[in-house]
């Protein structure tokens, strides 16, 4: 997840467009640049009103959707993310969200239950002690942030594909949607959800997941950018419609595969 949105407060988008346009030869300016500089401005100034934006911005969105398909094609369900020795774990592993650490959700373990919904046979909610009893897998993989930085962490939990089987999920459905305690959300494609390293994570470095890293549940997906790894997960739905996600809805690429 990006640490924070990086709008530029107090910057006139029209001036930005002019500045950006200086970089380019004359004929191409109008065609390619108006949307570019106004893109972020629109996202910031008008909230979710992005669809009403320029045609050039819409063109960028269309290409991003095309890139989703290219990435789904490049995604090999049998290709594993590289794993690393314990000595390479980044310590301290960074806390990362669009809010500060003391604003992170503080989930009450005793009251917590994981809500299950959608195309699933058994929608019984799960309590934490039940989840802790399930067979555990472990991975030491690289978390790559959309910002460019990366960190190596150690995660333990239940293989998500096993859990989906356990609850009788229809794995021919297209998506799995995750809802989080603070309102964050993510939609993930089913092939990625079924990837052998995709994990319903309950522990970091063999300790119960601390609040900073997403207590009680993080979905660890080493084949996707960090913001596609939801934390503080409270609900999981198997469905055929794309429910989007917190950052995806603001213009970040949907598939965001690694």
């Amino acid at each position, binding site marked *: 997840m*990006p640490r924070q*949105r*990086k*709008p*530029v407060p107090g*910057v006139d*988008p029209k001036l*930005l467009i002019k*500045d*950006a346009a200086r*970089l*380019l*030869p004359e004929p*191409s300016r109008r065609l*390619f*640049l108006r949307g*570019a*500089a*106004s*893109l*972020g*401005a629109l*996202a*910031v100034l008008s909230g979710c009103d992005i669809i009403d934006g320029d045609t050039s911005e819409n*063109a*960028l*969105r269309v*290409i*991003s959707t095309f*890139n989703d398909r290219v990435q789904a094609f*490049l*995604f*090999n369900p049998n*290709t*594993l*993310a*590289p794993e690393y020795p314990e000595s390479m774990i980044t310590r301290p592993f960074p806390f990362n969200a669009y809010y500060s650490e003391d604003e992170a959700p503080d989930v009450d373990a005793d009251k917590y239950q994981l809500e299950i919904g959608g195309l699933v046979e058994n929608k019984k909610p799960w309590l934490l002690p039940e989840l802790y009893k399930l067979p555990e897998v472990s991975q030491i993989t*690289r978390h*790559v*942030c*959309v*910002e*460019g*930085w*990366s960190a190596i962490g150690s995660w333990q939990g239940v293989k998500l594909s096993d859990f989906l089987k356990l609850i009788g999920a229809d794995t021919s459905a297209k998506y799995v949607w995750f809802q989080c305690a603070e309102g964050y959300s993510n939609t993930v494609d089913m092939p990625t959800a079924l990837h052998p390293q995709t994990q319903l994570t309950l522990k970091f470095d063999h300790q119960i997941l601390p609040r900073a890293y997403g207590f009680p549940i993080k979905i660890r997906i*080493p*084949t996707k950018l960090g913001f596609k790894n939801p934390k503080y997960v409270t609900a999981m739905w198997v469905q055929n419609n794309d429910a989007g996600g917190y*950052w995806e809805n*603001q*213009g*970040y*690429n949907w598939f965001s*595969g*690694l």
Partner: protein
Amino acid sequence: MTIQATTGPSMTATATKPVIHPRWVRVTHWINALATLLMIGSGWQIYDAAPLFGFTFPTKIALGNWLAGALLWHFAAMWLLVINGLVYFMLGFLSGRFRRKLFPISPAEVLHDLLAALRGKLSHDDLSMYNAVQKLLYLGILLTGVVIVLSGLSIWKPVQFQVLTSFFGGYNTARYVHFAAMTAIVTFLVVHVTLAVLVPKSLRAMIVGR
């Protein structure tokens, strides 16, 4: 040139000048110029989200305004850059232009022409012939183009293309390689544009071909 045999005496001197840059070179050159500027501008904005060094690029000279916008531009312009680049390389090899224009090249020649250039005694009479310094710079920038695309792919897909990523020394090192290649291209651009301005007929040749 066969053109001269088929044109009559009434044709102007300009029209009978031999073609220095065929149309495909000019078209791919200017598409590449646009794609390169888009990639650099958006790349600077992306860099700013997690700087590798102790500085950032001013948002005013970067493209995309914020990270999401810059990423949209970067991963759109990459298609322009790569498809145009592939067409250019294919035609460059098939037409024999690379072989004709860039080879042979020897260190002694490069040194000789570099010294001549620094003394201001390098001839630009025949624009269809590259001097040894030009040959070296153009070979270098072609290679850098390959490196920046491959290192970019290894940052974009460090799982699916992990063999490529490890070739560049892993994810983190690949970011530095990508940055270094950008720096090389920007440096080349400064020299390239300065020289084009100093020898305006070379700019003209890249626009009208002669």
